[in-house]
């Protein structure tokens, strides 16, 4: 496989240095607002300038430098199955991918859309386990109609721990639930120390623009630092609504909010694995609808990835697929393919959002299967290629091997060495009309549906061992008793 990766940068070195300096200045002079007294006290003990009354925190340049120096250059996010552990940086030069998180709606393969049901969570993990280009998963947002509304996240995590072969990224829904989510994850691997050594889960914590962290998200940061659970700290700004309307301004604010979380985490728990996760949106200035796939916001994502990866050598993560279209139409595939390809050529280490429609509000297994295909193409783009005499086929050309009337490139030694290299998407048509008609004139959606049926007809490849599953269930019972207000 080729290794000559080509990369696009959105900023000159001078611009990048300017953004970094401004970001640090923001943390030093303006600081952040953090609604969590124990964490405020711990940050004060670390040397931060903390006002316990206003709950504002400021940082010094020395603290920022110390925290950033503590970010591990290499780490692993583990998988429950042990078969999909994710080493960072990716040793093959690829990016990692994940499913969409937080969508309340599920669109079935038959097109029915409704709030996510528990059995659809099972179905979802059955499909994600089978996706070769999908590296880790999130929690579909099971509806409070089907599981207790106060404990949606813990009930969904139980399913993820039982059925997902892949690393799980957890989005807690209530501050009180965070401890229980960690307890369940620890039960799945055999204890808290084991979870620290082999984190099969990582956490989402989100800021509220600008530079505010509500209690729940502060609790996520605080407990993740306490238990050594990796965090992929997020910022989800909407350009023009709660951050500057310019893509650059929104990338800057989001990056600063993520950066502040990383600084706090590394001060509380030096060496904690973190992945900077600015997930940017923009507001349409006519409909006021929040957009995921607008062109400028894709450029903002590229800029944010660059701030962390190139600016600080910190791994970064953002949307790599998705659409504002409500259905599987041409807009959908234009948006998600252009987004994926742009991000593949950027600096991000993780590209997310697989399976989503409708600005991340709906997930659909057919879309997931097609995203798996798009990711395969994008991975090939990410890897780039080498340009040298071997790839130019210099030796054969200078020797004039093609002058032989019986020569064909099909028979050349060079072809024999390289013919397997082109990426071949699993479901794409690569033949003429006659054969296509003979095989049923199937389009991509039909083939994706067939693939779905085949996956579901095959027994799932992973299930948590029974003793660990029982331990998780016990923790779920405890969580239910503590959280659910009957």
């Amino acid at each position: 496989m080729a290794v000559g990766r080509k990369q696009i940068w959105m900023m000159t070195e001078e611009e990048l240095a300017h953004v970094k300096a401004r970001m640090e200045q923001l943390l030093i002079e303006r600081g952040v607002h953090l609604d969590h007294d124990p964490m405020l006290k711990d940050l004060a003990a670390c040397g931060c300038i903390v006002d316990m009354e206003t709950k504002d925190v400021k940082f010094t340049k020395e603290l920022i430098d110390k925290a950033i120096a503590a970010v591990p250059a290499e780490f692993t996010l583990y998988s429950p199955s042990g078969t999909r552990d994710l080493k960072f940086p990716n040793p093959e030069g690829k990016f990692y991918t994940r499913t969409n998180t937080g969508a309340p709606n599920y669109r079935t393969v038959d097109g029915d859309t409704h709030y996510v049901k528990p059995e659809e969570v099972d179905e979802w993990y059955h499909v994600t386990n089978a996706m070769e280009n999908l590296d880790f998963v999130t929690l579909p947002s099971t509806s409070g109609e089907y599981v207790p509304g106060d404990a949606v996240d813990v009930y969904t995590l139980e399913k993820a721990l039982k059925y997902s072969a892949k690393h799980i990224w957890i989005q807690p829904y209530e501050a009180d639930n965070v401890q229980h989510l960690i307890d369940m994850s620890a039960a799945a691997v055999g204890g808290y120390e084991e979870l620290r050594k082999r984190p099969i889960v990582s956490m989402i914590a989100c800021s509220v623009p600008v530079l505010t962290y509500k209690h729940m998200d502060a609790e996520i940061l605080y407990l993740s630092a306490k238990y050594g659970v990796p965090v992929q700290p997020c910022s989800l700004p909407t350009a023009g609504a709660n951050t500057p309307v310019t893509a650059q301004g929104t990338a800057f604010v989001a990056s600063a909010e993520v950066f502040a979380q990383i600084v706090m985490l590394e001060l509380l728990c030096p060496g904690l694995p973190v992945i900077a996760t600015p997930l940017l949106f923009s507001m349409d200035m006519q409909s006021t609808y929040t957009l995921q796939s607008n062109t400028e916001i894709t450029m903002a994502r590229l800029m944010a990835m660059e701030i962390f990866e190139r600016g600080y050598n910190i791994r970064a993560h953002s949307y790599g697929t998705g659409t504002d279209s409500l259905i599987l139409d041409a807009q959908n595939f234009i948006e998600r393919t252009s987004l994926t390809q742009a991000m593949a050529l950027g600096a991000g280490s993780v590209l997310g959002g697989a399976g989503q429609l409708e600005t991340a509000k709906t997930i659909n297994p057919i879309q997931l299967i097609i995203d798996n295909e798009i990711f395969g193409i994008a991975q090939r783009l990410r890897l780039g290629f080498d340009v040298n005499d071997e790839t130019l086929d210099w030796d054969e050309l200078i020797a004039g091997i093609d002058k032989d009337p019986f020569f064909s490139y099909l028979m050349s030694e060079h072809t024999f060495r390289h013919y397997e290299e082109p990426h071949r998407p699993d479901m794409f048509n690569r033949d003429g009309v006659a054969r296509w008609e003979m095989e049923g004139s199937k389009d991509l959606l039909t083939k994706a549906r067939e693939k779905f049926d085949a996956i579901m007809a095959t027994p799932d490849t992973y299930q948590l061992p029974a003793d660990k599953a029982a331990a998780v269930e016990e923790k779920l019972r405890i969580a239910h008793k503590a959280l659910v207000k009957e």
Partner: protein
Amino acid sequence: MNPYDAIFQNTLDGNEQGVLAACQELLDQGYRPIDILEQGLIPAMDHLGELLGRGERFVPQVLFSAKAMQSAVSYLQPVLMAQNELPPEPNVVVVGTVQGDIHTIGKNLVSIMLQSTGSRVIDLGANVSAERYIKAIRESGARVVCLSALLTSSMNRMRQIVREIQKEDFGWPVKIILGGGPITPSFARELNVTFGGSMVDTTQKANAFSVGLTDGAASVDR
């Protein structure tokens, strides 16, 4: 030439100083402030709403126009009071983001739009409990309450709050409008309340209900 043209155009353009200057000019010429309001400012905002609906204006333009109109109304208020010509009592609308959620963008936009179309808005902010909504409705006499949520996890809380409000007997009908990222028409239908699909849609539905009240024709959610 229509004497209110300058008011109309400056309001459309969001030109606050221009609107104030035009108001002063008409007042100096002896025009009644109530006419300036009803024939200049309000038609401009109505027209702007139409332009926005047709995709011919952008939200920031509407907000600047709303700001210009609010300044003009504040400017005219003392004259209106002096002439004992106050406009009709405005509709009162309670708005807030439900408990467990602190996202305020959509809620704030709805507040601004409602104010710009003449409603008095009781903005309860974010993380609002059922008790606070109920208290605000009772104290203000509001006939419309708008509940907003962005987080999927807030929908359950929203459901509980709606049921609490529906249980209350205010002594007058109260329309409940739900909006926000994860909220769908079917969710609103399930709770027997109204779905607000956007800032404009919510404002129109709130205003239509208020108009409907005077006609005795509005639907009632509580």
